[in-house]
């Protein structure tokens, strides 16, 4: 293998890599729309769960105390939550509400319903500035 051939091969490989990676990094308006639709589907599911769709054992639902997810303060987590005695991410407090006012079984952190509830809550609070730890 001579030097020039080897260099030419390397250059060709580099060019191919460059192009390939470049394509993977690009996303289109169409992608954005689709991804946003995917997200909004989950928001919609969260909205449903939040407004009586969650199988609450005592019929109490999230929106009874939090119309439009107000007074949930997603922008303040993680924060110290005195009902739990430590600094927690938001899903822990959602579970607290599920177990206490709703008297129902808590969800695993990565349960799709937990994701959906958080998606809806964050969506209703979009635009609020991050204030971690704020009580």
């Amino acid at each position, binding site marked *: 293998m001579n030097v020039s051939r080897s260099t030419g091969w390397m250059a060709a490989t580099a060019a191919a890599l460059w192009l390939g990676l470049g394509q993977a990094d690009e996303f289109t308006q169409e992608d954005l729309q689709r991804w946003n639709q995917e997200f909004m589907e989950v928001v919609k599911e969260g909205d449903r769960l939040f407004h009586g769709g969650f199988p609450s054992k005592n019929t109490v639902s999230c929106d009874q105390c939090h119309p439009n997810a107000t007074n949930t303060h997603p922008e303040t987590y993680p924060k*110290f939550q*005195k*009902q*739990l*005695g*430590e*600094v927690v991410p938001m899903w822990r407090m959602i579970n607290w509400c599920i*177990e*206490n006012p709703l008297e129902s079984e808590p969800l695993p952190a990565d349960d799709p319903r937990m994701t959906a509830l958080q998606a809806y809550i964050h969506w209703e609070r979009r635009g609020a500035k991050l204030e971690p730890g704020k009580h």
Partner: protein
Amino acid sequence: MRRFQLLAAAAIAAIGLQGVAAAPPLGLPPVPIPPDNPQSQDKIKLGDRLFNDKRFSADGKVACATCHKREKGFTDQKPVSEGFRNLRGTRNAPTIVNAAYMKTLFWDGREPDLEGQAKQPFVNPVEGGLPDHGPMLEVIRKDPEYVQAFKSVFGVEAGDITIDHVAKAIAAFERTVISGNSPFDRWRYGGEPDALDEAQKRGFEVFVGKGRCVSCHVIEQTQALFTDNRFHNIGVGFKKIRGREFQVAREFLRAKRAGADVDKTVLTKPEASELGRFAVTENLTQVGAFKTPTLRNVAVTFPYMHDGSLETLEDVVDFYNNGGRLREDDPVSPFLSGGIRPLDLSDEEKKDLVAFLKALTSPEYAQIAQNR
């Protein structure tokens, strides 16, 4: 966690505890010291002696230490305390341990600080039984050791010693009766994963979870006082005035308007006692509400509740598990706090919770707990 302790120690050094600065034990914040009653070794020693002096009572047999015995976790381990001539009051003697952190004193918070609290029992008709503070001040003024001590601590001559000086010295002593460093503290704040056994660890999860304990018996990220310093009606004792709340409240208020002393009334009249915080604030939303006690050393401070009506921790857990009543078919108080409701704990969870409560004993009292 280590860093938090260092910061706490630095904070004490910075505010200065007049020569008796000691880093607070694991799990506790620095002891708050009022600016008008700084700590000193002499004052603490004087307070200790006053605390144990039985001459400050009508029959010469009752000291502070009678109801707050060091060897009983600074309680008397009786349902309600016995004063001079074995007269009984209406309330369980709370522990002195860590009382320095309390934002109000007595079960109904009728005194704002240890100094205010310390003056009352001497002259209560079912405790010290003195007509006023005069006789005890006479004893002090005639005791050369006391005269010398008050002079060196407060710079007063015998004739100028007042009950306020006495109260300050006792409070200074009480501010040294501080205990943390329990197995729980070593596990949670000391980085010792094995300081609790498995049952106690499960019990902790019940405590902060399904048991709903932590909202009133506060645990935080770096410290745990196990009290919120607030007043709640948890259902204890309500049967004693059930259906008669209106009459009892009316009678109490009429007596109070006519000049009756709250301290004396609530300790001598069992029905008025059950009005709780209401007797102090006259706030209708505080009928039957009592202060949240700390749970530190709870294994040695039995029996429990403001009237000492629950004998064991198992009973206490049952009481909460049934939503503020010992038995499931007992009536529920209409004045019950919104924090209290049936918990649906399993037998296993109840056992674990009791195991956790027993992990709150500081080393100073561990032996007493074992002897029970």
